[in-house]
């Protein structure tokens, strides 16, 4: 086997980035804005306990918030105050009505609709009562006899 020793293989040309100058005072941003690492360094120099105190407060607040989030009550919807107020509204509308049962049809953003089943002279009928919550109390804003 013969080799053509006089021919050199083609050389792949590789783009070479210019070498950056060594980091030093001249490498700092011209505006004088400290980089994040130098900022931390300077804060550490200014107040040695400042960073750890801030981190401590943050951690404590996050823990408290997390604990409260987990501990938040997630009980059933507040049906009773709504139906009680709806029952009162029906009795006011029709003093002869006897409330047989009541429930909440809809409840959203401080307003609700309750279904109140009533007996009037042995006949059964029902009312739909719309209510609104203000100052922690439910108040009727409208009442209509259900179909």
């Amino acid at each position, binding site marked *: 086997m013969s080799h053509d020793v006089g021919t050199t293989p083609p050389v792949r040309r590789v783009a070479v980035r210019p070498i950056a100058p060594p980091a030093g005072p001249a490498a700092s941003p011209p505006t004088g804005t400290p980089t994040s690492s130098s900022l931390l360094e300077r804060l550490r120099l200014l107040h040695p306990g400042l960073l750890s105190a801030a981190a401590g407060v943050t951690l404590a607040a996050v823990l408290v918030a997390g604990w409260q989030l987990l501990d938040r009550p*997630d009980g059933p919807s507040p049906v009773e105050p709504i139906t009680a107020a709806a029952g009162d509204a029906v009795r006011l509308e029709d003093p002869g009505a006897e409330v047989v049962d009541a429930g*909440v049809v809809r409840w959203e*953003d401080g307003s609700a609709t309750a279904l109140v089943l009533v007996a009037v002279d042995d006949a059964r009928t029902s009312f739909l009562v719309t209510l609104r919550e203000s100052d922690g109390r439910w108040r009727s804003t409208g009442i209509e006899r259900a179909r």
Partner: protein
Amino acid sequence: MRRPTRLEAGVVTAPVVASVVAALTFTLGPVRGETFRADETAALDSARARLASMLTFSYRDLETDLMVASSNATGTFRDEYTERLRKLATDSLKASKASVSSRVENVALVGADASGVTVVAELRARTESEDREPATQTFQVRARLQGEGSQWLVSSLTLL
């Protein structure tokens, strides 16, 4: 000593302020959602569909209706209700060739606890039979639904 720059002061105070705001939001904010819980909404939707199905039956295809009633109920009530429906069919439904079709007009949540939810509903039922004119009547029921797997099934039904 040099005064900290605005950026330096911001880096320290921002997380503290954010944390305090977060803590206050959770502490002073509403203690619960301002609408029905998802399971309560699901139970109400389920009650609307299941009660109408259970209270719709015909002399024509009673076995299917009994199966439907059974699939919508649970516990000891399932057998009780199926048996009651079968008795009604034997006693009067077949003889008068009657059919009852029910629709839920309103359904409302009465209460919820760990074992289930209680609802009241108002239904409109249309009755057709061979010997009478079709008639429509409204009636009210109180029902209890129990969670079984991903379903809410009727575990008791009382006519009010």
